């Protein structure tokens, strides 16, 4: 079972890889909308990547209002 820290790091690594950012440039408390500059369609794409990576379903309404990696990781962790 992953720890929350591990899940958070995997979320950050996945985002950094997909958006081609240096691994150390993202932090758990970062606002990913601002940091990644993503729009709604890219957000959906990111959601698919996260679901495929963690093998879970993450309903949109559970991540509505979530904008930082750590809280996003908490939502994922609750479904692992």
């Amino acid at each position, binding site marked *: 079972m992953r720890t929350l820290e591990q899940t958070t790091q995997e979320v950050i690594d996945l985002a950094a890889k997909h958006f081609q950012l240096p691994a150390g440039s993202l932090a758990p408390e970062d606002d990913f*909308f601002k940091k990644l500059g*993503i*729009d*709604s*369609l*890219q*957000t*959906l*794409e990111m*959601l*698919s*990547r996260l*679901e*495929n990576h963690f093998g879970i*379903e993450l*309903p*949109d*309404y559970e991540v*509505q209002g979530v904008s930082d990696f750590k809280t996003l990781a908490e939502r994922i962790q609750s479904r692992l």
Partner: protein
Amino acid sequence: MKSFTGKTLRWEWRDGGLELTLDREPANEIGTAMLEELEIFASSFEALALETSSCIIASARKSVFSAGGDLRELYHQAASVPENERPKGIRSFLKRIHAVMNAIDAAPFVTIAAVHGACLGGGLELALACDIVIADKMARFAFPEMRLGFIPGFGGIPRLKRDLGNAVVRDLLFTGRTLNATRAHAVGLVAQLAGEGEALRMARSTAMQVAKYDPVARAATKEFMKPIPREELESEIDIFCELFARPEVMAALKKFVEDSGPMPYLP
């Protein structure tokens, strides 16, 4: 007409196969301009029927098959006419889009939706009119209409009910949530799951396979397997128009149109 290039889409016929590509910025929203070109597309079916075995519908836009109906256009058009004339305008639009969807649904060849990215609302309704949905593993499907106070209006509920169990239909409608491609495949919405960026290639391969079979048997199978739920489609238009006449809908549309947040398409 064997090829066409319009403002929102294009198609080409080659070796018995049609390929329709949606290409309207930013997200293939289906408004009046796309409707007009889809009508031209559907009107070409009869002439092409005898020499066509398949039709692929795909998107040229990155990250999206179609975000659905053009809600901005819908709002601005509705806002520009007196309140009591709004249902008449929307009914006319819905009847036209239903005619196109029904033509695609009953097309005299096998229709294949090659889906990548977001496939929402009217975009999902277009995919559901096709015989086979092939989806990239990054595709996502949703009916987010209820967040605005109405229902899918391009034939979505009757066609979803035709293909899927009621439990999944209710989940999709009442939550407005997006289903990922794996889940959509598991519930039977998607026929074939493709790797990332592979949906169109798989659709072309499928089109080559269906071309091998006898066209009369193919047409008979389609008519037998996939009846158009005409009565329910008519009811859908009535329900949509009734819901659309409420001030709550215009208020929700206004909020949506003015929303500049990063997640306006999410419920």
